[in-house]
Structure formats: structure tokens, C-alpha cells
């Protein structure tokens, strides 16, 4: 019975590790293969979160089953990366737009003000600090 559980855990951990490795590799491959910076931005922000997540969950299961040590550290790193990945992606996108994208190439905002990278609302009527 216990041996069965160990075997299942072993299969699950191995599967997660293999999947994580593949996604991590594909994410970095996309970085090299895709031909435009905005496209390249998609590869690392997405493919690597599952890569990291897989490794961390595998390590949680591994230490719980094989080392008899309940560990929730990994959960913290996973949550941290899930929270920070969109922020870094947004910052990189804004830097790229600031340097290389002309406002005329973007769809118009259809509002009184332009996109926050190029335009700002005067200080006294600002609902949210968007910049």
C-alpha cells in the first residue's frame, strides 16, 4: 500500500519535472525564434511560469513524500512569480513602446486622452496615477 503511494508520487514528480523542463525550454526557444520584441515578450512571461510552477510543485511533493518534511516554501515562490510576471511584462512592454513604437501605429483610445506612455492627464483631474 505504502509502496503504491510512493510509486504514484514518483510518477507524478517525474511527470511534473519533464513537463516543467519542456515548457522552460520552449519559453526560451521562443525568445530566440520569434521576430518582434512584442511577440518575444509573450514567450518568457507565459511558458516559464508553468516551467517554474512545475518544478516547485514537484519539489513540494518530493519533500513531503520522500523526505518526510512538509514544505510550503515553494508555494511562496510560485505565488511571488505569478504576481511579478505580469508587472515585469507590463514594464518591458511600456519601455519598448516608449523607445520603438509610434503612437500612430496603435489603435486610438477613443477617449479624450491618449495612451499613458505618450500622454498624461493634468495633475488636478487625475483619477488614477497611470504612468
Amino acid at each position, binding site marked *: 500500500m505504502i509502496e503504491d503511494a510512493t510509486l504514484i508520487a514518483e510518477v507524478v514528480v517525474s511527470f511534473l519535472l519533464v513537463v516543467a523542463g519542456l515548457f522552460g525550454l*520552449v519559453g526560451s526557444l521562443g525568445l530566440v*525564434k*520569434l*521576430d518582434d520584441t512584442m511577440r518575444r515578450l509573450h514567450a518568457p512571461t507565459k511558458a516559464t511560469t508553468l516551467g517554474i510552477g512545475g518544478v516547485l510543485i514537484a519539489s513540494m511533493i518530493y519533500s513531503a513524500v520522500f523526505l518526510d518534511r512538509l514544505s510550503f516554501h515553494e508555494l*511562496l515562490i510560485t505565488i511571488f512569480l505569478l504576481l511579478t*510576471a505580469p508587472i515585469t511584462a507590463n514594464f518591458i512592454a511600456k519601455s519598448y513602446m516608449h523607445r520603438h513604437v509610434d503612437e500612430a501605429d496603435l489603435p486610438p483610445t*477613443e*477617449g479624450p486622452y491618449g*495612451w499613458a506612455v505618450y500622454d498624461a492627464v493634468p495633475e488636478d483631474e487625475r483619477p488614477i496615477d497611470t504612468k
Partner: protein
Amino acid sequence: MLRRIFPHPQLTLMLTVVWLLLVNTVSPGNLLLGLVFGVAIPVITQPFWQKRPVIKRPLRVVEYMALVIWDIVMANVVVAYTILFKSNARTRSAWVRVPLDLTSPEAITLLAGTITMTPGTVASALSADASSILVHCLDTDDPEAVRDEIKHRYERRLKEIFE
């Protein structure tokens, strides 16, 4: 009075849980230390965020998190497929403008984060008056469908949670 000691009750809870995760053991001593941090940090940083985010329906948050985690997994598969099996010439990227009905900064931040983590879209910029959000799609034939999906799938749920 209670509001002076716990300016942000959710933050207190979160800091305590994060502390327990960080030390990786649940013992009365660590719980107490975590609670001390959880009470002290919101009180000290109170001047920086005076407004509390209002969560109208806490149960919907769980549903939203499950939906987003599922979408993140699917997003990974979709993007991996695009990277591996589509040539650059056949990939059609597009900028999409999504008009926003949300007004609270927390809700807009969450929506932008969700958009970035889900299939083939990255939230790139807000308009200066925060009335619409600029999204970059990796590979789409129909930008309108992307916009409608974001509005229907994520924004509607966030609106129920926050407003």
C-alpha cells in the same frame, strides 16, 4: 478603535500567512511573531494607503482564482504551440483596445495581470484617463473576439467582486 489597530485586516492575515510560509514551520511562537508583524506593518505603513479595497463578494474570488489558474495552464499550451509549430510569417499579431467598465485601481490592476497571464495576450498600457487598456495579441485572426472574451470572461467577474 478597532480600525486604528487593524487598518487593513486582510493585509494582517496575509502577512501572518506569508511569515508562516517563509519560516516553513507552524508553531505557536512563529504564529505569534507573524501576528506581531501582521499588526505592526499595516499600522506603520498606514499613511501610504489610506483607502481600503472593498471586496463585495469574497467567495467569487475563489472562483476567479480557479478560473485564472486553469487559463494560465491553457495559455502555456497555446503559446508553446504557437512558438513550436507556427512560422513567424503565419503568426498574426495585433494591438487590441479594450474599453474598461472597471474604475477601482485594484480591479484594473488585477484585470491587467490576468490579461498578461492568459492565452496569447499581454496588457501593454492604460490610456491616460484609465478608460481603456491596450492589449497585444500574439496570434489572432479576430481581434474583436479577443476583446469580447476579455470583457465577458474576466472583466464581468471582477466587476461582480469589486463593484
